[in-house]
């Protein structure tokens, strides 16, 4: 075991895969600058900067994947995926089904996501559930360096399209690039355990669709992903002082969803609190409630999510994003039921 940052873990796993498989190519906006180590080691033919043409280069990733390459295509931020949605919605996601399972699209769309550094509502969205809504797309959202590398490897090895989202409060290179710009005068609420941590000496793929219980708890189950997992762990520590035992389940992938782990945890505690940085309505939090109800598990349910367009103002933003205080308050309320 060694220690690595979240950001380095992704690129390190990617480099390991690229060294072993010449079909893996990386392209996207500014990749020469954002992935300098890959650019130098693998050359421009395999790490290729793209024009600001998301519809074309994400669409090209679909074609390239159909024709034998294994592209890891980068979109500067998940918000910008809006420009390229057709490639994912109507093509990448549907090809396997349309071809009767005879033609697959092994591609990864990699994009930074999430807020908490005052960049405004067009640059801080999460959108993981919005994407996971589409049948055929796998959506991966790691919360720590070990998962970040392991899930990148499994995303690359997967035979279908995977959206791989890295939260900007966890990927320190992105936060430095977009949030602080080298300033020491700004501070963001960065979860230390997510940004740097132990990783294996050699990367092994982490299974897709397998959640991880980060903390056991018998009174209530907090379910989240990415930065939300760390906020939940913080909340769980606060709740412990109030003699409430709160478990924390890290979904790791939105789709496929680990329904079994969810149902197991919730049936033990009888209380489910979903903490989701993505939008509340018609999203992941509602889906988790549906899964539990469909399984016939009696449950007290609550959710702490982003409910509106994310404000630019830091104070307002902190109120809108699911923070530790909101989680604790919601958990306490649920405990009264």
């Amino acid at each position, binding site marked *: 075991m060694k220690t690595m940052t979240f950001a380095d873990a992704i690129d390190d796993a990617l*480099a390991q895969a*690229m*060294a*072993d498989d010449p079909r893996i190519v990386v392209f996207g*906006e*500014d990749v*020469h*600058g954002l992935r*300098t*180590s*890959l*650019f*130098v*080691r*693998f*050359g*421009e*033919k*395999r*790490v290729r*900067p*793209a*024009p*600001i*043409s*998301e*519809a*074309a280069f994400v669409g090209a990733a679909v074609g390239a994947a159909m024709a034998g390459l294994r592209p890891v295509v980068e979109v*500067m931020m998940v*918000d*910008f995926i*809006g*420009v390229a949605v057709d490639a994912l919605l109507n093509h990448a996601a549907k090809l396997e089904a349309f071809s009767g399972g005879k033609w697959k699209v092994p591609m990864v769309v990699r994009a930074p996501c999430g807020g908490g*550094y*005052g*960049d*405004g*509502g*067009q*640059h801080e969205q999460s959108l993981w559930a919005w994407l996971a809504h589409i049948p055929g797309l796998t959506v991966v959202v790691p919360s720590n360096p070990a998962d970040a590398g392991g899930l990148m490897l499994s995303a690359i090895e997967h035979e279908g399209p995977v959206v791989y989202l890295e939260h900007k409060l966890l990927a320190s290179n992105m936060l430095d*690039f*977009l*949030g*602080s*710009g*080298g*300033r020491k*005068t*700004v501070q963001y609420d960065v979860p230390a355990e997510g940004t740097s941590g132990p990783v294996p000496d050699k990367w092994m793929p982490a299974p897709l669709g397998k959640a991880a219980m980060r903390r056991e708890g018998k009174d209530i189950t907090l379910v989240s992903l990415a930065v939300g997992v760390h906020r939940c762990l913080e909340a769980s520590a606060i709740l412990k002082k109030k003699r409430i035992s709160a478990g924390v389940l890290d979904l790791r992938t939105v789709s496929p969803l680990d329904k079994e782990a969810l149902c197991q945890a919730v049936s033990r505690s009888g209380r489910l609190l979903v903490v989701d940085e993505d939008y509340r309505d018609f999203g992941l939090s509602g889906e988790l409630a549906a899964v539990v109800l469909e399984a016939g598990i009696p449950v007290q349910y609550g959710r702490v999510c982003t409910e509106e*367009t994310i*404000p*630019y*103002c*830091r*104070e*307002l933003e902190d109120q809108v994003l699911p923070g530790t205080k909101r989680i604790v308050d919601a958990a306490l309320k649920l405990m009264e039921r």
Partner: protein
Amino acid sequence: MGPDLWLLYRQMLRSRRFEEAVTDLWEKGKISGEMHLGVGEESIAAGIVAHLKDGDAMALDHRGTPPLVVRGVDLVLILKEFLGRADGLCCGMGGHMHLFSHEHFAASSGIVGSAGPVAAGFALAAQHLRPGNIAVAFFGDGAMNQGMLLESFNLAVAWKLPVLFVCKDNEWAITTRSQHVTGGNLLDRAKGFGMPALEVDGTDVEAVWNAARQGVEKARKNNGPTFLLAHCIRPEGHFLGYTPLRKSLESMVGMVGPLLRSLPARKGASPGERIASLGSITSLIGRTVAEKYSKRRDPIYRVRQRLKADKSRLNEIEKEVAKEIQQAVGIALS
């Protein structure tokens, strides 16, 4: 009749001094997130906005500050927005990439290329509701590879929409050299849509003003869109704090470290390809730094050179502008 260079100089200087004040606030940590300046584009903003009248609309990109300053949006409101205040231009909700002034028909967006379709829509509304009014779209050369922008060129030509499409060509697409990811030339590309296309030195405010006049007059007479390619500079890099322009040793080490580690790594590209990659990164950094310190194409320096005979008038304008900005900052921070 030519432009009033004194007026244009004042407007350009207001924008520059304003963004210098913004830089200071950003460095002090009073402004969060990214901050893309329009330094180097003031001549384009001033030369074009000078032709606008009430009811004309502007669709702006992520460098929207200069056109708003020149258009007469309250500086205190813009500053308060950057500070994230509830009494800011957009109540602290938008921030610097999402500035809106309904009163001025000015809307910005951080999605590259999106100014095209929005301006086409503004122009369509003008055709119906405000004949004689026009719309201007401001975007960069990077946006010229965005489908939605090119589609809006076609739409504007097909529907004869009163739009002036202004491409601020600083030769960068975020931190990639545009030339490296762009086929053909931009002027021909616009002409290919059947639209008149003008090319100017965008650092020469008089040239911009003259070209803009043609496009604006044509649009006002309902004779369709014009494309204006204005070459300019980007001395502050993509945004404030852009890595190659940081002065700290820490960021130098952060940049060089991964390069040196990956150069000899086992498995990968040939030594020649690796050296080529290293070379292109070095050249990008060199180009960024050189642009920061080159005065020759600074639009403000250029117009000032032409006016320098009248020192006392220059002095007076510069004093007034400095005072205006200082006051705005004072009020915004109070």
